[in-house]
């Protein structure tokens, strides 16, 4: 298995799928000649040409809609929205066209598009470039939502998403493109549903996704060393649909649940996971589940305030110790 950066893994998935199928195309702002803001499409313009690697104007709603329309006729577009904050402009086409067309056509028409977009707090990008939106996408019927936490998932989820017959939204993170990790040398398809136990434990389950899986892993190591607490870390790489069985299995084992999300808590992943715990395994709980989440503020520019607006390892440790009465 080769070590590869997150952006390289995404680029490799693009390249393999485009080499295999001439109807796989990619489109977005600065993805062609420039090679992508995060290099996810580097070199593809030279290799596949401007008809298949399309530098779009800054018209998020309509180029997303254009990709969706192309998918009606069997094209498989991978659409990059440079920041998830810009995805609001494309919500009409994602929500009203892509997600609903199968249903409202009685199954005649499908929109097999992939929409990739990074969000999250990075380096003082300010309120309009730092928000996360997974909570919005995961509430939409007809749309799959996945969020890779490592290069292997970034590669394998994109490969599966391109071939899937549903529209898939891939939520990436501004800070994770240079993250290194192992990616299988041969072709690999990550399932679009399910969850992964990243670390086995017996005392408490830390649910994370995307960047918060890494925070959870750091916390778990710290808890083991300093407090003898064995935390299980569950990576919810599929946000819609969420893995009900995976959530139930882990909570039934540890009887304690903490959900870590970078976004603000209301109407979020944590709220959804807690609802699933209530529905699936309430009587397995030894304590009320807890969310460790961002504050309900637009992300500030000031660095100190910015850091305070999102959760950190200390917040998670404090939540776990309190829950376990230590």
């Amino acid at each position, binding site marked *: 298995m080769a070590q590869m950066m997150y952006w390289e893994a995404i680029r490799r998935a693009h390249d393999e799928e485009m080499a295999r199928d*001439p*109807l796989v*195309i990619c489109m977005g702002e600065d993805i062609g000649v420039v090679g992508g803001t995060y290099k996810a499409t580097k070199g593809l313009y030279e290799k596949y040409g401007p*008809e*298949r690697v*399309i530098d*779009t*104007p800054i*018209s998020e*709603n*309509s*180029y*997303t*809609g*254009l*990709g*969706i*329309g*192309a*998918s*009606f*006729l*069997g*094209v498989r577009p991978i659409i990059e929205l440079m920041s998830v904050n810009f995805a609001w402009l494309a919500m*009409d*086409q994602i929500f*009203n*066209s892509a997600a609903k*067309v*199968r*249903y*409202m*056509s*009685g*199954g*005649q*028409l*499908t929109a097999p598009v992939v929409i990739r977009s990074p969000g999250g707090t990075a380096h003082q990008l300010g309120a309009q470039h730092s928000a996360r939106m997974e909570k919005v996408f995961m509430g939409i*019927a*007809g749309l*799959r939502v996945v969020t890779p936490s490592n290069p292997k998932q970034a590669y394998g989820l994109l490969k*599966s*998403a391109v*071939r*899937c*017959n*549903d529209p898939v939204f891939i939520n990436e993170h501004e800070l994770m493109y240079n993250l290194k990790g192992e990616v299988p040398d041969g072709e690999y*398809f990550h*399932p*679009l*549903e*399910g969850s992964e136990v990243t670390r086995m434990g017996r005392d408490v389950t830390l649910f994370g996704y995307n960047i918060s899986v890494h925070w959870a892993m750091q916390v778990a190591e710290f808890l083991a060393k300093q407090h003898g607490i064995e935390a299980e870390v569950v990576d919810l790489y599929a946000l819609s649909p969420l893995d009900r069985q995976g959530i139930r299995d882990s909570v039934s084992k540890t009887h304690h649940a903490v959900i870590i999300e970078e976004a603000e808590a209301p109407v979020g992943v944590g709220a959804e996971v807690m609802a699933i715990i209530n529905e699936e395994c309430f009587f397995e709980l030894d304590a009320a589940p807890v969310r460790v989440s961002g504050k309900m503020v637009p992300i500030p520019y000031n660095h100190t305030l910015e850091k305070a607006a999102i959760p950190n390892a200390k917040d998670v440790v404090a939540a776990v110790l309190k829950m376990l009465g230590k």
Partner: protein
Amino acid sequence: MNVADKKRVLHEMLFARRFEEHCYEAYVERKIGGFLHLYPGQEACAIGVMEAAKPGHDYVITGYRDHIHAIKCGADPKAVMAELFAKETGCSKGRGGSMHIFDVEHRFMGGYALVGGPFPLAAGMAKAIKLKGGDEIAICFLGDAANNQGTFHETLNMASLWELPVLFVCENNLYGIGTASHRSTAVTEQYKRACAYGITSAQADGQDIEKVYEAAKVAVEHVRSGEGPYFLELCTYRYRGHSMSDSGAYRSKDEVAEWAKRDPIQILRDHLIKAGELSEEEFTAMNRAIMETLDNEIVPFAASSPEPKLEELEKYVLAENDPWVNPHVTGGTR
């Protein structure tokens, strides 16, 4: 169009008129629910343009006033009526309704209810045609009010830039819901707005189907020959309100009466009678036959069809048994 063609499109327009009138009646009787946007007055637009294109071959997309576009593309009127009646036999299996008629087999790619939403979808279909190398074109029918959406400007820019084979047909009926075009739009002659994007455009009388056909022939030929997109404005009028919940009270009786003098069915009928190609009796017989088909076949089919099954409420949300959901379990390959 030769005489036989003209008689055929006269029949199609008359059928469209009577079809929509039956929809009106069924709506009043509460057999059709939701919103219902009717087409009387505008028949020459969809039928005339598609007469110059290839129905069932070219990809067509439109807004919510979509019944007649679907039928002209080849949709079975029984399936369209059954859709309005919310039945399983409807062309969208009762899941779509009046605003979401689909018949993908005949390349009618749907009616969409967000004003201006179909613009980029049409350009995307044109992009797909270009990638696949076919001789089809994409045709997008929308009203004048859609041109005040961002998607109009964004899409025309991309369609022109990338020379996409898409024909934009603007059915200018002078009103966006209840607001007159001159009260919402700085440049009311819609064809002029396409010029900003370097797109060839034209304006034609939308009430005289022969003029629509001639203008559309030029437009279709332009797009099909690879010269890029084309924008065709058709000046027309809807007799009824925007939808059934709109009485149209914002328009003067004089204005409506003035437009009624330029009725598309009347114009073609009079033309054929004057030329000695059609008799009053023939026209009356044509009308009677249409009414019989609607009353004895189409509406009863819709009325007697079964409702969708309750246990299939969640069908069609996502693909069934998609191997990529869990390729390790299903061994998904392609």
